[in-house]
């Protein structure tokens, strides 16, 4: 009996150490695999972020340069100025409008997709993915051509006897460009959410004499809410920071936050103020993303 128990008690002592050493080795391996990217992101992401934060507390000197000494909140205080407030509210409003329009178009579309036969559905999905992958600049430029003077749209409205339009360089054109650019971001998460819902639940609600509206309001909508939230955030955030679209389709009266920040760096040369605005933009984005993950979003 002692002969058998002797070695087993020894190995029982030896195993944890052996395992610990093996675990340490594994942990080291994982760490070294991650290390190059970790360092890369610290140098080229975290440090730049810290520099922006430092700049946002600095002061612009008379020559358009930046004095890093004497930190203050002046750049953040400027956000309360009427012009800045107008641009901020305009950006929020247009981003909100873009999100709502995308939602109203994408929800029935995603439902329509979900009711197709699987083979057709996959083909239809591919044709949603193609614009998603296509160059954003080019897609916005296409609208510049369409909305331009004597362009195809004017020709069409004149032909229909509706007269001319003045869409280009207006807020409407910017919203149109944003909707066109980000609609796939709304369709894909909505489709993923709706496709997962058990169709029998809706049938059951109809069998129990619920009207179509009641089935939608009380069954379909609550069950697809994660998709609604995910899509809305994926559309709202890039719309809020949009720069390319307002530059191409907007005019002097449609300056949005993204373009305003760029102006601070490239033409107005007020870097501290631009840094403060970018930081505010990032804060809004972070809040949105935290909500997204809280609501159970998994994919980006």
């Amino acid at each position, binding site marked *: 009996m002692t002969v058998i128990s002797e070695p087993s008690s020894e190995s029982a002592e030896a195993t944890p150490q052996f395992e610990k050493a093996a675990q340490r080795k*594994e*942990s080291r*391996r*994982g*760490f070294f*695999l*991650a290390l190059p*990217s*970790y360092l*890369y*992101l610290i140098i*080229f*992401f*975290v440090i*730049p972020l810290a*520099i*922006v934060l430092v700049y946002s507390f600095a002061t612009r000197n008379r020559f358009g340069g930046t004095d890093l000494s004497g930190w203050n909140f002046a750049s953040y205080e400027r956000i309360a100025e009427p012009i800045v407030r107008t641009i901020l509210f305009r950006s929020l409003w247009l981003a909100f409008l873009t999100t709502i329009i995308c939602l109203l*178009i994408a929800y*029935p*579309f995603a*439902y329509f997709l979900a*009711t*197709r*036969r699987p083979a057709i559905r996959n083909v239809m999905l591919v044709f949603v993915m*193609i*614009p998603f*992958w*296509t*160059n*954003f*600049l080019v*897609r916005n*430029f*296409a609208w*510049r*051509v*369409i909305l*331009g*003077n*004597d*362009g195809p749209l004017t020709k069409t409205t004149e032909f229909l006897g509706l007269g001319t339009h003045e869409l280009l360089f207006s807020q409407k054109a910017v919203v149109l460009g944003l909707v*066109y650019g980000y609609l796939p971001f709304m*369709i894909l998460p909505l489709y993923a959410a709706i496709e997962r819902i058990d*169709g029998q639940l809706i049938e059951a609600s109809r069998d129990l004499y619920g009207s179509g509206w009641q089935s939608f309001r009380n069954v379909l909508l609550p069950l697809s809410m994660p998709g609604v939230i995910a899509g809305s955030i994926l559309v709202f955030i*890039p719309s809020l*920071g949009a*720069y*390319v679209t307002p*530059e191409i389709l907007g005019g002097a009266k449609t300056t949005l*936050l*993204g373009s305003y*920040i*760029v102006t601070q760096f490239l033409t107005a040369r007020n870097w501290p103020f*631009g*840094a403060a605005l*970018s930081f505010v*933009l*990032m804060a809004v*984005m972070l809040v949105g993303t935290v909500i997204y993950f809280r609501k159970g979003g998994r994919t*980006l």
Partner: protein
Amino acid sequence: MSTAVEPRGWAKAALHVNGWLVYIFFYAPIALLVLFSFSDNRNVGIWGGFTLDWYQDFFDSSNARGALSNSVKIAIVVTIISVILGTMSALALERFTFRGKKVFDALLYLPIIIPDVTMAVMLLLFFGEFFDLLDMLFGLQLRKGFWSITISHIAFNISFVSVIVRARLSGMNTNLEEAAVDLYASRWKAFRHVTFPQIVPGIAGGALLAMTLSLDDVVITQFVTGPGWTTLPVYVFGLIRKGVTPLINSISVIMLLASMLLVVLSLFAERARRGG
């Protein structure tokens, strides 16, 4: 998979109409852009008979060709480095536990969700300070251009590649890897002969996304580029702001073709990913 219930009557009709309108909305502008790139009229958007002049303009313009070749060079370097770094971090996060893993995971998501403009500002200030520092310490006079753009594109692409490769790794059965290790394969051999062949479609998908994002980027590139250095999207963006010309039409169609080619390749990668 259960198919959602299709409504009846007018609701059904409305769904169908909306569906087809969405497709028209997606594709009509692209189709018109392609059409007008062949239009023999200086005024973009008015049909004036068929011509290939604007494509000739593109091939005659050394600026445009130079910008295209810059874009391609950058995209190739960016794709190679992002794929290596992104795949390594995906493996680290999906197959290992190590100290600082949670922080790394969160950090890796940030470049995906941060607005372009903010990232552009970050890198502009960073390269400014960094080059000043190098000048002060070593008297090195660096200029922004190829490397500052490449470094910036890699900074956001590592994250995109790692998300795609991770999705592949997490959906994979680990039994084979474990069996290989049980049979005394080294971790490297198990990776080389068992894990790697299975994640190739994910890596290919990540590479195509990285290449697309690098070829498409305007905002960040515009901030980190130097004098005399431009990529195709930045060049086109500059042209558009000066005024719309037919040359932009033809370049746009060329960029469109490049995007389409990458889409088709990504669909093949997707199919391989699903097929396993």
